[in-house]
């Protein structure tokens, strides 16, 4: 009898463990595995970036030589300039487009669900498809320019795809088409979460719709704007498939982006060390976006806790 009494609590702890085992397995195993993958491969890449590896990884130490070679190359310089231009233009314009779409959808219009699905739909399309379709649309001999010419307006010119100076904007256009629906969805959620009582109070005080948007609704969207910008920025920095399908870095090397340079160095030129160095540089660029964001989140949370 005593035996049974003593073992009962133990058994129930065991059954509790068994009962919760699937939860633990489902959460911790994938989490640890992916963390280990991410961290170990990041460390491995950093190590390779300091070695003289070419075709295959080799041990050795070359200091910063791979980094100086990459940053001195025309490809990387063009890619970096393009990233600054593409990143800022894409993030600002896609956020602005998303915000305008969200405000328009927020007017209690009919068919909102349908319109929302339509604007969100491009997000379901793979970037390779987006890039390929836009490469046809934007090709002056096949797409929009040809259509307008065939309609009779023969002096119309829209040849950014083959114009070295403007080609980067074709990537901005395609990227905005693809992801402004995502920004719209986030902003729409933000708009809907604004306290209706405040808006009613403002209406009673006699504020017009423009004023309500400017003074009440938009300021309360600030945290969502930061989220949209950060998510779009990290997408911009790692853009690869879109530009590869749309321009493949061309005309010439006018639309290179860092991710293309990494792939090119590692797998086309068989220069693993330099490719790894370029990848680490990309990671550093990402950190310049993500670290301030993390700090901002931390401060916000601290403030919320104090309040």
């Amino acid at each position, binding site marked *: 009898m005593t035996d049974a009494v003593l073992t009962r609590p133990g058994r129930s702890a065991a059954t509790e463990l068994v009962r919760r085992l699937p939860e633990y397995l489902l959460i911790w195993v994938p989490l640890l595995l992916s963390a280990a993958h991410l961290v170990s491969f990041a460390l491995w890449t950093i190590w390779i970036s300091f070695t003289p590896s070419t075709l295959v990884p080799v041990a050795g130490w070359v200091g910063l030589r791979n980094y100086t070679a990459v940053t001195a190359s025309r490809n990387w310089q063009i890619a970096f300039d393009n990233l600054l231009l593409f990143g800022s233009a894409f993030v600002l314009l896609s956020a602005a487009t998303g915000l305008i779409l969200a405000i328009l959808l927020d007017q209690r219009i009919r068919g909102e669900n349908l319109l929302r699905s339509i604007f969100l739909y491009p997000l379901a399309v793979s970037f390779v498809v987006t890039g390929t379709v836009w490469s046809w649309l934007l090709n002056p001999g096949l797409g929009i320019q040809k259509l307008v010419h065939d309609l009779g307006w023969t002096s119309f010119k829209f040849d950014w795809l083959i114009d070295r100076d403007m080609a980067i904007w074709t990537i901005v256009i395609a990227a905005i088409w693809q992801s402004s629906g995502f920004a719209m969805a986030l902003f729409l959620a933000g708009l809907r979460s604004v306290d209706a009582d405040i808006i009613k109070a403002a209406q009673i005080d006699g504020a017009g719709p423009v004023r309500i948007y400017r003074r009440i609704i938009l300021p309360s969207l600030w945290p969502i704007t930061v989220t949209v910008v950060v998510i779009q920025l990290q997408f911009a920095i790692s853009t690869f498939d879109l530009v590869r399908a749309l321009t493949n870095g*061309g005309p*010439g090397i006018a639309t290179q982006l860092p991710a293309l340079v990494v792939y090119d160095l590692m797998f086309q030129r068989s220069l693993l060390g330099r490719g790894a160095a370029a990848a680490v540089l990309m990671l550093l660029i990402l950190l310049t976006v993500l670290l301030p964001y993390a700090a901002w989140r931390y401060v916000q949370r601290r403030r919320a806790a104090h309040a």
Partner: protein
Amino acid sequence: MPITTTRRRLLAGSVATLALPAFARAQGAVKPRLTAISQWSAGSDGAAITALGKKFEEKGGVWQHSPVPGFTTEMMNKLRAQIMAGDPPACSQLKGPEIAAWSKIAPTVDLDGVVAAAGYEKVVAPDLARLHKPAGKWIALPLQIYSTNMLFLSKRAMDKAKADKIPVTWADFNDLAEKMKAGGVPYPIANGGTRPDDGQKFEAALAGISPTAYRAAIMNLDTKALEGPEIKAAFAQVRKISDWMDPNVGAQHFSTNLKRFVDGDMGMMIMGGWAQGVLRNAGFKFEDFMIAPGPSDNSKPVFLLNADAFIFWQRKEPDLQAGQMLMAQLVMDPAIQTMYSQITGSIPVRTDVDLSGEGWSEGQRRTAAALKDAIASNQAVLSLAHNMAQENGMTAAMIDVITEYVKNKTIKPEQAVTRLAEAVEGAR
């Protein structure tokens, strides 16, 4: 019980069958087996290697080919992974100076014996042979040859220009382009705009202006030759070519505009011999176009060599070793080379194969004749654009400059010369 007896018999029988291969191996009569990887999975390339596999099986071998479709680099990624795992294929596709580079990361098979037995060295272009024995021993075997600077002429565009003579020198070529333009051909040049395509325009220009300068500058990376007047002249010729192209070409593949080429909207194309197969596959007839060796200022054909090859990786298994020897014999066999080239549209590596027979096209005969002449006058050189002249890293650095020059018409030829020399220094 009858059932039990059957089962027992069956078991005994299957054990005996299973033991058979082991028994055969012990007797020294192994069945040759070959594990191979290549990028050739579809089209005429896929058909050709499948036919080669059939021949291998006819000789009693086991053919295990795993194609990696897509770019050559994707095949290389698989090869790299297999080598690093210590399990290389018995044989893989690889070409040009990459043979030398890759042979340093894993042991290869010494093919000197089987090559000597076949008397192969005498019938292979010397520059080509050198690539396949980087350390003095044959470790790889070329399979088929293309010339990257064949000149394709649209019959209808020729009619519009009222011309019937095939241009021999670059001056002839430029005259004909002007005539085509005057005769109502909107774009006298039909090339595409991919990186190798842009590279081909430049290598065809330089080798046609001076094969000696090409050898010194591009193949030997001689600093003086890289800044020589021939390089500037070649860039100037490339500028003319790019001015005659449809500006909308962008980064299109050359095959996109083949219909406009045949229709006479575009006149001439400088492309590898493989374009013949692409034109024929697209349903166009031999009457629609002409093929000739690319322009050469000294009037003797210049041949820019591009050759596919197999490299053989060391394996311990006796059946794989036997398979490697059988494969080597097959690849060198004139009958096999004939079969292969007739499927893909290339020309055989062996210079002693007779191309007068039925299965050959006029273009292939001209290409083979050009190769013979070019070897005789030392004007057979290795293609830069198709990774035959330099390792991938160096090639890519040089093509960067060339492709930017083709697309950016504000760059002057003399600036391009400086940039090319700088790119070579940076990649050394």
